[in-house]
């Protein structure tokens, strides 16, 4: 099918590329489906594009790229809703905010997006505890990751 997008123009996508939200993404009640667009120039980030709303596009990333020990506490209810038995079965992504100054980019670790790759169901969930914030510095995450890797080496 052809999807109109503001950022990428008209895009041809297969049905198998479309993910359905199990619950609306907070702030975007009119979007029910997303698909992902990979571009070399923003790796390891990806675009997450709304099918229903051409102007709704997010930058998302696998949180472990930057936050090595990220372990969100997600309720069993949320997992079950997506047909997942455990968090290990899920793909997790987080939504990124890219300000003008790239060093200030942040990721929303409080509200990760949970994906069942098999059924292509997805949902933004809220972690149970407030261990993670909605605006965590990606740069700080990288620094901690490098620090941890260094300490591992010393051991």
């Amino acid at each position, binding site marked *: 099918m052809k999807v109109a997008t503001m950022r990428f123009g008209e895009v041809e996508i297969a049905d198998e590329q479309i993910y359905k939200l199990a619950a609306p993404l907070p702030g975007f009640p009119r979007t029910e489906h997303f698909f992902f667009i990979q571009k070399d120039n923003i790796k390891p980030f990806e675009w997450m594009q709304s099918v229903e709303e051409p102007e709704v596009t997010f930058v998302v990333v696998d949180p472990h790229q930057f936050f090595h020990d990220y372990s969100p506490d997600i*309720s069993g*209810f949320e997992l079950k809703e997506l047909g997942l038995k455990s968090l290990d079965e899920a793909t997790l992504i987080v939504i990124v905010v890219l300000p003008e100054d*790239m060093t200030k980019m942040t990721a*929303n670790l409080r509200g990760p997006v949970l994906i069942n790759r098999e059924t292509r169901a997805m949902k*933004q969930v809220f972690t149970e505890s407030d261990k993670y914030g*909605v605006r965590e510095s990606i*740069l700080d995450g990288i620094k901690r990751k490098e620090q941890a890797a260094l300490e591992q080496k010393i051991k």
Partner: protein
Amino acid sequence: MLVLSRKLEESIMVGDHIEIKVIAVHGETVKLGISAPRNIPVHRKEIYEEIEKENILAARTRAEIPGIDLLAQIMKTPESA
């Protein structure tokens, strides 16, 4: 919306398994105790609103990211700092 009056220590049931009890009232603050099965997520409305706000901000990313390698740029910065 169903509106109910409750006194201290009184509660309401939502379905068979969720109990919401008034634990304390101090001035304008009402402390509620919520007993729900572990698999039912319970959140303050503020969390929802915070995430909603952040989503809206995230979707506002400027239209053009000039052909830069984002990761290269942010990876470089910690070393130079």
